[in-house]
């Protein structure tokens, strides 16, 4: 048995594509004030997996200007390059192949194919196509998708290593809008299911974990908090608390509290 002071996470790793991680919180690296704040917030989050985007380099800039990788060394973090901003399977596959070359053959990748610029809702048809091509090419695909359990199952059958349904729209902070669909996806999946997108505050992350999610991926909820570093810590604690509550098994909900916690006998009269 574990010593009481030992963090539960030590004995309960998140395993993605055969790799174990003690943190179940994955974070993005966008929207921060500067790289120093990015670094500080991500350290406070305890995250081991960080997402990055792939974009054209700024040519003609100061060659010695710092880059994100100087602040988040690839030796300390697992990079999860994404295909954010791609609207077709072709663009997503092309972007993620460039990412793999950039990161020296690193196969773990976050696939997202968007369908609409005002909602950033995923285009699942293009997502399925891209997933098939990437898996066939040896990528380990963590896939952002809708909360449709049938699509989630198809993505798992294709060979995605993690299914990442949205809780609500990317960047919306609206929280877990359809917990029951998430439960259906979690119950059927044999690979980790992570909520990706929509978390607004710590209780949202805790709810996701209490539902049985293997982890939570977020960016805006931390980066756009008034105090991103403090919110990063709150998210770390929320994910841990939610995971423990899930593993502990909550008491059943009862409309009437017919069972007081204090003895019913021995009352003075």
């Amino acid at each position: 048995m574990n010593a009481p002071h030992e963090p539960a996470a030590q004995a309960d790793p998140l395993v993605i594509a055969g790799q174990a991680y003690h943190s179940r919180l994955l974070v993005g690296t966008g929207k921060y004030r500067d790289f120093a704040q990015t670094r500080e917030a991500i350290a406070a989050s305890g995250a081991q997996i960080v997402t990055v985007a792939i974009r054209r380099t700024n040519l003609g800039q100061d060659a010695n200007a710092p880059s994100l990788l100087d602040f988040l060394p690839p030796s300390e973090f697992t990079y999860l390059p994404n295909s954010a901003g791609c609207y077709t399977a072709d663009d997503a596959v092309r972007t993620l192949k460039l990412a793999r070359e950039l990161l020296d053959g690193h196969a773990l990748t976050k696939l997202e194919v968007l369908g609409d610029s005002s909602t950033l809702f995923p285009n699942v048809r293009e997502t399925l196509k891209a997933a098939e091509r990437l898996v066939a090419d040896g990528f380990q695909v963590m896939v952002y998708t809708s909360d449709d359990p049938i699509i989630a199952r198809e993505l798992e059958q294709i060979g995605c290593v993690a299914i990442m349904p949205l809780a609500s729209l990317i960047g919306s902070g609206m929280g877990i809008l359809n917990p029951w669909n998430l439960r259906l996806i979690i119950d059927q999946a044999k690979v980790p299911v992570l909520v990706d997108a929509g978390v607004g505050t710590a209780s949202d992350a805790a709810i996701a974990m209490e539902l049985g999610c293997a982890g939570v991926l977020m960016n805006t909820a931390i980066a756009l908090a008034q105090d991103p570093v403090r919110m990063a810590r709150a998210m770390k604690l929320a994910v841990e608390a939610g995971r423990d509550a899930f593993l502990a098994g909550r008491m059943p909900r009862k409309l009437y509290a017919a069972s007081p916690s204090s003895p019913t006998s021995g009352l003075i009269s």
Partner: protein
Amino acid sequence: MELIVNGALRRLTPAPATIAELVRALDLEGKRIAVERNGEIVPKGRYTATEVHPGDRLEIVAAVGGG
């Protein structure tokens, strides 16, 4: 030499003969980048061996903050 680099026309003098020379001319040597030439990824180990020709379309990308 005229090349399309990251979607924009660039005139480079002297003309780079290879991807390695182009990367140096653009001050990107030693940076963590990935290069695509005419839609094909050029692996890091092939920069010196890969020739550049006038009109080539090059994409040079890096990792940036994102979710």
